[in-house]
């Protein structure tokens, strides 16, 4: 794989993770448990979609085949998507959405922190812009982890159940491959071993405060997002998200 192909792949992974998480979260719009949370989740979804637009535009430039951000978002099938498996999982209840938000926010915070010193100018700019938004998302979800985890018996149990379910997808977050290795060697990509160490440190500290147990599911975890091996849920998201531009090719709105 040449450097350019690796860079395109890296950008698509970042963009797909943001887009699918944003699309998933937007399902909460109009269904939040309270008005403020409905607005908060919709705002966060919008941030992710904005971030994916920036990195898709750059990916299109790298590829040099004239694909736009919309082409990348709407005209690829599930096997070509590289979003992390956790992002395509159903929202579940509010505790499940907040648990995923927390795990992802810590992850993106450390990933983008590292990418703010990437040797690639565009990735650096993307990270410097996005991390400011991710810091807000992290504060928001961390507050909810504490409220739910250290809250009532029911909120605690729901959050613990959510964490247990999501934990199967934790290894997938850090499943670095030859793309990461190649780009890391020239200072473009983040070192996922370091990101994992920082992530685990933060998550353990917060879980202790929120009285949540770290699950042990080491024998059965799912990876594969970097090769386009998804869970069954992604196809349904794409069917909804891509319907309009697929049914009406060239439609503008």
């Amino acid at each position, binding site marked *: 794989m040449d450097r350019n192909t690796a860079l395109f792949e890296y950008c698509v992974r970042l963009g797909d993770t943001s887009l699918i998480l944003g699309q998933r979260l937007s399902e909460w719009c109009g269904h939040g448990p309270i008005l403020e949370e409905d*607005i908060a989740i919709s*705002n966060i979804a919008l941030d992710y979609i*904005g*971030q994916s637009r920036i990195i898709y535009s750059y990916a299109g430039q790298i590829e040099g085949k004239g694909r736009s951000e919309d082409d990348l978002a709407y005209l690829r099938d599930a096997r070509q998507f590289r979003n992390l498996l956790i992002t395509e999982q159903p929202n579940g209840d509010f505790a499940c959405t907040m648990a995923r938000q927390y795990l992802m926010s810590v992850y993106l915070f450390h990933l983008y922190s590292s990418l703010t010193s990437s040797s690639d100018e565009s990735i650096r700019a993307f990270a410097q812009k996005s991390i400011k938004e991710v810091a807000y998302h992290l*504060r*928001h979800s961390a507050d909810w982890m504490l409220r739910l985890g250290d809250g009532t018996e029911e909120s605690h149990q729901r959050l613990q159940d959510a964490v247990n379910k999501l934990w199967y997808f934790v290894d997938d977050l850090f499943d670095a491959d030859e793309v990461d290795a190649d780009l890391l060697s020239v200072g473009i990509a983040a070192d996922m071993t370091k990101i994992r160490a920082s992530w685990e440190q933060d998550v353990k500290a917060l879980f202790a405060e929120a009285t949540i147990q770290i699950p042990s599911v080491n024998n059965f975890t799912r990876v594969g997002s970097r090769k386009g091996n998804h869970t069954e849920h992604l196809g349904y998201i794409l069917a909804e998200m891509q319907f309009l531009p697929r049914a009406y090719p060239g439609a503008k709105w």
Partner: protein
Amino acid sequence: MSTTRSIAEITKILEEVTDPEVPVLTIADLGILRSVEEKDGLLEITITPTFTGCPAMRVIEEDINQVLNSKGITNFKVRTVIAPAWTTDWMTEEGKRKLREYGIAPPSMSTEEHLKSLLSGKRKPTVCPFCGSNQTHLTSAFGSTACKALHYCDACQQPFEEFKCH
């Protein structure tokens, strides 16, 4: 250039373009308008988004097109950049005053102080734009637009918005 107007005059025209979501502020007050330059006979206007997903950006670009076209200026392009990343540190003092008078609390911290406060979870109360009290609390860090947070004033018992530190 197809116009005889100077860069300074064109900048002045552009400084009148307002934010569609916060119409009391101009794109210059907000720091969205980054530069106006002439490059190879073409006028290049550079703008930057507040938040990555801000839907106002397209409207702002259209407003720029419209105001320049109405003055007979057509030989230009609008360029959107994301670096350096926009910060509320760029908001002018005049902008902050206008916001307060409009009923929105201006950003109260520098970007650096704000990031520390976000990560630690400790924050100073935001001063109420209506009564000036600091007996206020944050109801939600996310508001009616990407750039605003929701607060409540315990002194005058009014909900109010804050232009988020960023």
